């Protein structure tokens, strides 16, 4: 007897199997996001924006109105939508390059202005779609196409601590968390809380999701998982950093 895979209701079945590389974490993040959307019953009023880079492959992922914009510009596009129609639930979905490098000014300022949107940032410590170059989140010593001898923090700086930065510059009504694809149940809870924070009109909501890139990491399944579970959380602590009026987890 075969069992059909469980997919979120809001996934668009016509575009499955999805286009991410085998072993990529995007599918898991989008599954958690889809389930959160289902459970909150907001599919009909959600708008989804994605960046250039691997996240753009999610442009037709959901049965949800979606827009794919330029590298780093998803945050202002969704900000513009939400400002023009506050009834909608706006999700800006991007990678670490889009959020912490080319689009960092947008992330910082949207957070500072406490925009009522939800930003989901997938951190896989490198630029996936352009072929594995160094990202702001590349770990010290990690080899990439533009740090072939390993990232030298003396010349390139330390990995960006995104949620920590967002937590530091947002008011108390913001929600900030870091989850991981190695704990999808928890990640889903964070995403759901981030969306609830927007639904209740509180403020900016930000979730970073640690994820894998086996293609550019040149790792097999076991090593990919080891990197996600062991190497990444050493620098990127899992848990909630800011929960309005509630108890943090992690």
């Amino acid at each position: 007897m075969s069992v059909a895979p469980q997919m979120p209701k809001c996934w668009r079945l016509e575009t499955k199997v999805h286009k991410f590389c085998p072993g990529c974490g995007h599918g898991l993040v989008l599954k958690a996001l889809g389930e959160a959307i289902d459970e909150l019953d907001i599919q009909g009023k959600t708008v989804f924006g994605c960046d250039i880079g691997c996240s753009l492959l999610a442009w037709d992922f959901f049965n949800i109105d979606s827009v794919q914009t330029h590298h780093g510009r998803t945050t202002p596009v969704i900000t513009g939508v939400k400002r023009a129609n506050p009834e909608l639930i706006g999700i800006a979905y991007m990678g670490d390059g889009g959020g912490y490098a080319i689009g960092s000014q947008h992330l910082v300022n949207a957070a500072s202005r406490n925009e009522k949107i939800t930003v989901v940032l997938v951190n896989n410590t490198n630029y996936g779609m352009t072929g594995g170059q160094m990202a702001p989140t590349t770990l010290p010593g990690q080899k990439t196409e533009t740090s072939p001898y390993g990232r030298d923090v003396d010349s390139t700086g330390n990995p960006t601590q995104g949620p920590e930065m967002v937590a530091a510059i947002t008011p108390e009504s913001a929600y900030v968390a870091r989850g991981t694809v190695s704990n999808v149940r928890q990640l889903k809870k964070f995403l759901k809380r981030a969306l609830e924070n927007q639904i209740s009109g509180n403020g900016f909501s930000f979730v970073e999701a640690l994820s894998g890139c086996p293609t550019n990491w040149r790792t097999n399944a076991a090593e990919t998982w080891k990197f996600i579970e062991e190497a990444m959380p050493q620098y990127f602590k899992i848990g909630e950093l800011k929960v309005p009026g509630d108890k943090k987890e992690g």
Partner: protein
Amino acid sequence: MAGKPIEGEKRAFMTGNEVVAWAAVAADVDIMYGYPITPQNEIMHYWTRMAPKYGREFLQTEDEISAGFTTIGGVLAGRRSFTATAGPGNTLMQEAMSMAEMMRIPIVQVVTQRGGPSTATVIYSQQEVTMTCFGGNGEGARIVYSTSTHQELFDYTIKAFNIAWKYRFPTFVLGDGYQSKMRESLTIYDPESRGIKMVPTEPYMGNEGLPGTDRDPHHLRNTYNTEDELYGVVTDIMKNWEKVAPEVAEYQEYDVEGADVLIVAHGVVTRAVQGALKQLKEEGKNVGHFRPITLRPIAEDQLRKRAEKAKVVLVVESSYGQLKKLITDAIYGLSTPIKTFLKPGEGITAEEVVEEVNKLL
């Protein structure tokens, strides 16, 4: 909410930036996204003073890149949205305008030209013609109106929103620092009182019904995977553009019948040329003036018709040949010589135009 911003018609004496803000309010614009840069700042200043009175919104973004993309977001949500900028800000905004070209997003951008390249001056120029007409990567299509009076700033700002939403091409109102800062008389009006109906807006995202059940979801993208796919999309845009262009192109002519010298100028320089024509006529010279109102698309057939009969075409502009490029392209193949009077970043007087014309006669 308060009533209409303008009841019927009203004479006014105001700066160009104020005119743009009044026009946008009168045109039922819902939201402005903007970032400060001289000389367009007062558009935002007046907008932010008027907007709350009429239930309109404003967001001051972190930079012009964001202003461009948030304006796109506003349009995607189905609201009449606009932004304004100049100079280096116009440069930054081209990224968003390029996306608007690809996705046929009816975004309106007001440009008040300042000097360039780079920071240059904050005062005046006609040096943003090339960028405003052709600033995107690829060959996107866009509509650019070049205004020469405050009345036109008012008229064409209103018109820009209707043309943008009717044809779904990004639309620009190209003014300049002189127009921004000087005061002039004009008539402001409620568009409805002149029978101008604002083209209704509609959302690209967040429409009624559950996507996937009641309707298909709207999946907007500007990334294409194959050459063939992109070829299809761009060819479609350009075919549509070529069909629309003759309907959109606007121009004015002054004394062009039998003119030996055909002066071509746009924007405020048109006013100097009209002053010069008056004097040259008194001197019995055969001089005419062709003024493109839309710089893109340009009224090519009409311009060719006039240029063909002239002995010489004189292009007069406050830039180093940006208009001339458009004219050369439009009349390619004619044997009429093209002469120029180019003053990048500097104003042009009627006396200077007279002197230049006399050199040719």
